[in-house]
């Protein structure tokens, strides 16, 4: 962070806009004036901050599979369940339901994956760290979704993305540091990307809505039809002139300095965000890789490609969402559809991250809010199960081709090396170089953390 403030009128070049990291703040000019509270208070709260220790990854792409994907139909192969198909289960009047999908071993690791994810399995199974012993505290969506996102199902608490942004700041000030595409409107709504008692600048920037198309998606307040862009740039220059006049008059004023910076950054963001979200800038090969304009994979392909573009541009925490994993009935057909919609895009994302040298810096997480039960309901459905489910991580910092923990023979309960959701949060922070016990914020007389008073880093999965 050494560059000095540029000339007021040459600030807005696109190239510079995309490259710019969090430098060039005028307040640095006053850094020599002692570490006064005033200057601390007016430092950019989103500027990159050093982690607690050497990080394994710098950013997160969080793939939220809303509804609770069935582990025994995806990544947790249960031959005993197939054998016991039709036998009485533990639920009253409900028999066990062997997976209707075929499983195979893939890659050098020989991990089992169901037929739903041929691309992920064939190309990336040796990159995945599959945790089959997840468990969480609630089996109801409206509690489990906020719990997954905030680590608390009782009170309003900051979301994990807000914690990460608070802990690390963000690298590219021309883009929001925490972006969530298509978050749920209900099930906690804004709570899932909110900042609660953390300053509001750490909340996620939400775009779109769960289940809706992302075609034509944009960020709010980025542009207005009111004024042509060239005149708006004139307007911004006028404001800057006014602000500089005020600053001259006040001699030293870090708050006005801050306002000048944020004007400059806001203006750059207006160019940078649409540019990053513009998928037409991608090659035909890339679009094809993600399955864009190819029917089923099109929508989630767009989300995955945007996630990669955001990651590449330096966004710290990116969440994208695919809904409809709540198969109380019609599991066979619906999961096949989910597979067709997400397999190719996710595999493409992993491939693309590797090809672009982003792999080692990016932690990819695939998870729902809980898993499903081994018993059948409503013909070919399964009900919620918080006691055992599967998630996977990939990319920077985690061991690939690894399965960690197990559920019992029917996939009902995590038995070996159970990993609680708090442990997952602790591990995620650890991979980013943050100690979940030290990443705290004082509110209401005590220091709060994402993991409350819980959480153990699952060190076995770390590369």
């Amino acid at each position: 962070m050494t560059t000095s403030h540029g000339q007021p009128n040459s600030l807005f070049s696109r190239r510079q806009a995309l490259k710019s990291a969090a430098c060039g703040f005028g307040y640095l000019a006053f850094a020599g004036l002692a570490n006064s509270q005033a200057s601390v208070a007016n430092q950019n709260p989103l500027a990159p901050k050093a982690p607690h220790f050497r990080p394994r990854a710098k950013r997160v792409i969080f793939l939220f599979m809303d509804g609770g994907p069935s582990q025994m139909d995806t990544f947790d192969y249960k031959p005993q369940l197939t054998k016991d198909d039709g036998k009485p289960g533990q639920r009253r009047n409900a028999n066990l339901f062997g997976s209707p999908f075929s499983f195979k071993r893939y890659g050098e690791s020989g991990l089992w994956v169901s037929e739903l994810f041929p691309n992920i399995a064939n190309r990336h199974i040796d990159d995945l760290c599959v945790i089959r012993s997840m468990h969480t505290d609630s089996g109801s969506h409206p509690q489990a979704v906020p719990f997954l996102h905030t680590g608390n199902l009782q009170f309003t608490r900051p979301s994990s993305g807000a914690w990460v942004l608070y802990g690390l700041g963000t690298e590219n000030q021309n883009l929001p540091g925490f972006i969530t595409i298509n978050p749920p409107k209900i099930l906690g709504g804004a709570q899932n990307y909110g900042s609660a008692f953390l300053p509001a600048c750490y909340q996620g920037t939400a775009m779109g809505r769960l289940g809706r198309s992302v075609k034509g998606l944009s960020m709010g307040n980025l542009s207005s039809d009111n004024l042509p862009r060239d005149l708006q740039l004139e307007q911004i220059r006028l404001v800057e002139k006014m602000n500089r006049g005020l600053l001259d008059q006040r001699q030293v004023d870090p708050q006005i300095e801050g306002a000048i910076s944020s004007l400059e950054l806001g203006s750059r963001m207006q160019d940078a965000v649409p540019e990053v979200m513009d998928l037409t800038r991608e090659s035909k090969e890339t679009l094809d890789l993600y399955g864009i304009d190819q029917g089923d994979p099109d929508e989630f392909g767009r989300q995955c490609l945007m996630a990669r573009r955001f990651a590449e541009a330096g966004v710290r925490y990116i969440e994208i969402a695919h809904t409809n994993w709540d198969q109380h009935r019609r599991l066979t057909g619906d999961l096949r559809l989910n597979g067709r919609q997400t397999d190719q895009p996710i595999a493409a994302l992993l491939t693309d991250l590797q090809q672009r040298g982003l792999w080692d810096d990016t932690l990819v997480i695939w998870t729902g809010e809980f898993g499903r039960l081994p018993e059948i309901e409503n013909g070919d459905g399964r009900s919620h199960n918080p006691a055992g489910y599967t998630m996977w991580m990939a990319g920077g910092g985690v061991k690939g081709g690894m399965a960690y923990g197990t559920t019992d023979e029917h996939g009902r309960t995590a038995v070996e090396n159970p990993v609680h959701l708090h442990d997952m949060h602790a591990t995620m922070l650890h991979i980013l170089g943050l100690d979940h016990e030290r990443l705290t914020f004082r509110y209401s007389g005590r220091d709060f953390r994402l993991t409350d008073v819980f959480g153990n880093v699952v060190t076995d999965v770390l590369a």
Partner: protein
Amino acid sequence: MKIIDFSSTVFCILIAPSFLSADEISDADLKFFESKIRPVLVKECYKCHSIEAKKSQGGFRLDTRKSLRDGGESGPAIVPGKPEESLLIEALRHESFEMPPSGRLDDAIIEDFVVWIQRGAPDPRRGKSRSDQSTDSALHWSFQAPVRPSIPQVQNDAWPRTDLDYFILQKQEAAGVRPVDDAHRRVWIRRVTFDLIGLPPTPSEVETFLYDESPQAYEKVVDRLLDSPHFGERWGRHWLDVARYGESTGHKRNFTFPHAWRFRDYVIHSFNVDKPYDQFIREQIAGDLLPAENWQQRDEQNLGTGFLAIGPKDLIMGSDSQYWADVVDDQIDATCQTFLGLTVSCARCHDHKFDPIPTKDYYALAGIFHSAETLYGTNPGSGAGSNAHPSELYALGENGAEQNRIYLEFQEKLNSLVKPIQQAENALKKARDSKEPVDNIPELEQNVKKVHQQRKELLDASPPRPDFAMAMREKEKPTNAHVLIAGDAKSKGDLVPRGFLSLVKLSDTPTIDEDNSGRLALAEWLVAPENPLTARVMVNRIWQHLFGEGIVPSVNNFGATGKSPTHPELLDYLATQFVEDGWSIKRAIRRLVLSRTYRLASTHDDKNFAVEPDNVTLWRMRSRRLEGEIIRDSMLVVSGRFEPGPPEHGSVVTDLGDGCLVRQLDPEPLFQSQTFRSVYLPTCRFFVPEILEIFDGPSPSLVTGARAVTNVPSQTLYLLNNDFVVEQSQAAAQRLLKDGAGKQQRIDLLYQTAFNRRPTSSEFESAIEFIQNAQQTLSQRGQPNEKAVQTAWAAFCQAVFTSAEFRYIH
């Protein structure tokens, strides 16, 4: 203003080494002790072996590290590292003593103790016992009653105007700084007007003040502002921050509170009439229990208890006991943070680690709130995840109770028809759909008709719906609360008599009778002049809103982990004076804004800055960014669209109706553009108006004493592009074009309304250059001339709204 401090990211236990035992204790050991050992000691042993036990059995206590190691009459209880030699283990195994006498504990628990002693019995508890702690805490400044200090001596006694200036100047002289000059009158009137009513002064108010040569010029301005109805809107909003005011339940199923606004208006009214603060507290805790001379007064007082009823609620929580434990927790938390500046909620699960607040005190308060009924309404909802805990409401008006009785009866009758209608319709449908011939179809049709007729008759004669409010009322039978071990509603400990926090020592503690909840006594306990916290906490809040930071910067935390006062004597002076003035908030504000200290300019000074850069001594005024609400209100004033008063039915949420947001009610109207004051904007939890989200508005689920202040690009983007800002810019432009004769006059007018000053000549030039260029460009691109003029001026007005000067006061 909350300073965002990134350096304090260390778990609080670790930054308070003075509270740890002499030898360091690792995180893992601490966790082990807190999760495995302490809960058992508390639950199984403290009753007979702690300072609280009437007589420690066997002369032995194990409520402190020291006493456990010293042991009792039979010798040391533990030998660290050697469980087999430890008497405690013998006793737990029922080998010698049989402890606890009620029955041997699980082997797993005993094994935990063995492991703990093997690890050296690491024990974080303070050296002394809890009541020794209280003696310790008696030394904590905020737990002692304030004593009115004498006015300090200063060298430069020409400088102070009022008593408080002496306290300020004395610290400055000691620190070697000199107060800067007084602010220009223009700066001062802008500052005080925003501070008192949250709106910019009008150009004529500024002019009047500038040329007022009378010695009372400042007083006149202040008194005019204190009398303004906008005063209550400004200061009421401060209160709504700490009262965690919200118009929906929050949580995953978010049900509206369509009547919450009555509490909002009650608060605004209370500030406007300068309701004495002690009365204000009484009403919010126990307004329903106060004597009233007439029904209007009765209603007014009942409205106050909305404070306890408006907290967030998780209405789909299945467990009743957990649900009510959470509701009561919110009430305890809000009460203690708001009035006492204490964070008591820690004691829900364990004794407060830093303040002398034992778990039993928490449950003493819990008993008070459990003995009252919380009236918050809410629609029963529908389908999966429906409301498991709907409640009644308080009916306003002379005959509110009677009206409500009739209305509830009517509702009940209406509800009782839902099933018969469904049954009749289903039966008819089944008969019609049946493949077999059915002969009773006419009879079934008749049935359907009949039930619908019944419903219609009922509706035709529907009684008027009373005006409702959220409030509290007494339960028929008050109860004491059980301690819940580790806060778990399923694991009950001892029953605790209703009472207050033991850390506050009054010479005459109000008593709680058996036949009432004790809320009234709680209110009296809060406002007792001897209560060391109540007055201090409030004058500190007032100070914060006028000077940008509290004398105690941690405004909601006066406990051991809070910050120390920068001017302790001044705080006590203000607190005692506040009580002497009959708890008048307006007088307290008046005293502050008429001081010399408040009159200071906010200009930089190299010498002072070198000595005291943080300006703790207030050698200059702090400049402050206006809140989101005020930025919005100011735009409305400049645009001329500002509409005084609340919306027609009290709140947009009232019009939205009663139900679950998103699932039953479309939240879209919550975000529609409005022109009334921001304090009246809908405030549903998780559906906060955008400008408040962007400009650091409070989270309505949390008690907010000090808002964060950030300076981030999303704010600029909002001002540059948001429809609301564009609308106001256009309206402001229309107004200028209508009122101003020429360019110069218009620019001058805008500067005077928006900045309360006149533009410099170079500002004139830049503005004219910008407007002309924009106008030309737009005309060249084919905009009709009139439209181009409008757009150009609107763009200029928007530049003014976007500028830093518009949102800062200096």
